[in-house]
């Protein structure tokens, strides 16, 4: 087999193996909060289970992104030289580490929504909407990683040892850079959801502030993406 194809197979395992970490922890967190709340409020169990399942489905998005990249890496026809192989490994690193933060972060607001429903079951709709917005914005870190990973898979690089290093560096930059912002976004969304669970009248203000806070939290991930794009296209 060609070197590039071998790298592609290895990167598929790397992407899915690392990509499963974050989402699994996040989903477990939602289920933990749901069970805790249910033990105090068994009457609203139906609503809690529904929100738990919706939240878990959205939390899984990050792992599904890793799965998509992994499937592309496994089944695509690979043509390319020695350097092309390293773009696949870099793509695997980018999406694999990139999903850890967002997967865990998306779980945090889901847990808060379950707690809020335990306190005031009539707020279930408001809490679900805010949870979904918070989770969707928490996925931004993974979406940046996915973009870089797909660019790396489709890239036709120049040859040379410098290019190998710059490609691997691009994968590491966006992969590790996405861990913190993903978790940070989740913390913002969790606390916004907890506050809405206490007093849903403040939802407009809290959702607005949550969005701005999450956008600023993602700034470091944007720096990672800028560095990755420079490493891929300029150096």
């Amino acid at each position: 087999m060609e070197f590039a194809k071998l790298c592609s197979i290895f990167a598929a395992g790397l992407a899915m193996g690392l990509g499963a970490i974050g989402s699994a922890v996040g989903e477990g967190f939602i289920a933990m909060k749901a069970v805790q709340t249910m033990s105090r409020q068994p009457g609203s169990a139906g609503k809690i289970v529904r929100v738990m399942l919706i939240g878990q489905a959205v939390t899984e998005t990050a792992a599904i992104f890793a799965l998509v990249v992994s499937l592309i890496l496994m089944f695509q026809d690979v043509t390319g030289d020695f350097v092309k192989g390293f773009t696949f490994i870099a793509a695997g690193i980018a999406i694999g580490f990139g999903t850890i933060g967002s997967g865990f972060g998306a779980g945090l607001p889901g847990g808060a929504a379950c707690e809020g429903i335990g306190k005031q079951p009539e707020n279930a709709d408001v809490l679900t909407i805010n949870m979904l917005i918070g989770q969707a914005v928490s996925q931004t870190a993974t979406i940046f990683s996915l973009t870089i990973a797909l660019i790396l898979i489709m890239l036709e690089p120049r040859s040379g040892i410098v290019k190998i290093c710059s490609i691997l560096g691009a994968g590491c930059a966006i992969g590790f850079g996405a861990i913190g912002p993903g978790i940070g976004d989740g913390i913002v969304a969790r606390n916004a959801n907890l506050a809405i669970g206490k007093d849903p009248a403040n939802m407009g203000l809290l959702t607005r502030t949550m969005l701005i806070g999450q956008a600023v939290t993602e700034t470091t991930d944007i720096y990672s993406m800028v560095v990755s794009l420079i490493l891929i296209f300029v150096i």
Partner: protein
Amino acid sequence: MESIGKVAVQTITFLGHTISFNPEMLYMTWLVMGIIIIISFAATRRLGVVPNKIQSIFEIIFSFLEEILVSTLGKKDGARFVPLICTLFVFILLSNWIGIIPNLFGFLGVIIALVHKLFGGEVTVVVQDSITNLMITPAAGSWYRFLFKMPAITEPTKYLSTGLGLAIIIFMVVHSFGIRTKGISGYFKSYLEPLPSEGFWLYLFFLNPFFYMNIISQFANTLSHSFRLFGNIFGGGIIIVIVSELLRYIMIPVGLFAFFGLFAGAIQAFVFTMLAVSYIAQQK
């Protein structure tokens, strides 16, 4: 698929300098501006106490943004920035949403060309790797050939230039507002924070590490402001292109269009506008 990471570039020579620009982005920016002008004209033509549909949409956006501005900047300064912030929001929102329109002209051209071939016209059809991926070239003199040359509709915000241009406008507004409210000395002293700006601290400002950090953070704000919009829209566009390619264009990924086009587009338009408001509010 080959188009990822590449932009169309057209160069012109003007007074001995070569200027290169992106024609797609310019077409799309003018298209968005034209749509906004037409819709706003239609909305304000017959203003009524009881608003009609289009007027009420504009009133919702206006009152929503005005309320936020007045609560963060105060009544006088807030009212001054309402036109800028509303225009920014409507422009970015429409720019992000326009990408969900499929390539109608190209589709129409393909249909007409195929019908033309059915009746014996001179159309070359090359089947590429699958039956849904056809390469169709009409004969040189046919009347519908212009449909193949129309640019595809893409988001102007997909290119970094749009986001950077808007962020630079906000940068200039923020700093001119800062000089206007604080005066030049007050504006300069704000860069020495959190250390005191009196006595020898003022004269030895170049020894103050926060002076350099504050300057860098102003540029970092503008950089992240523009890249946030670009990264989200560009990333969504790339994901849609690659998923469509994997599906061989048999299916349109409607869910992805709804998420990246409508939802993420609206969120990013709101976030860009609100960050502009908070940067302005920092200078107060």
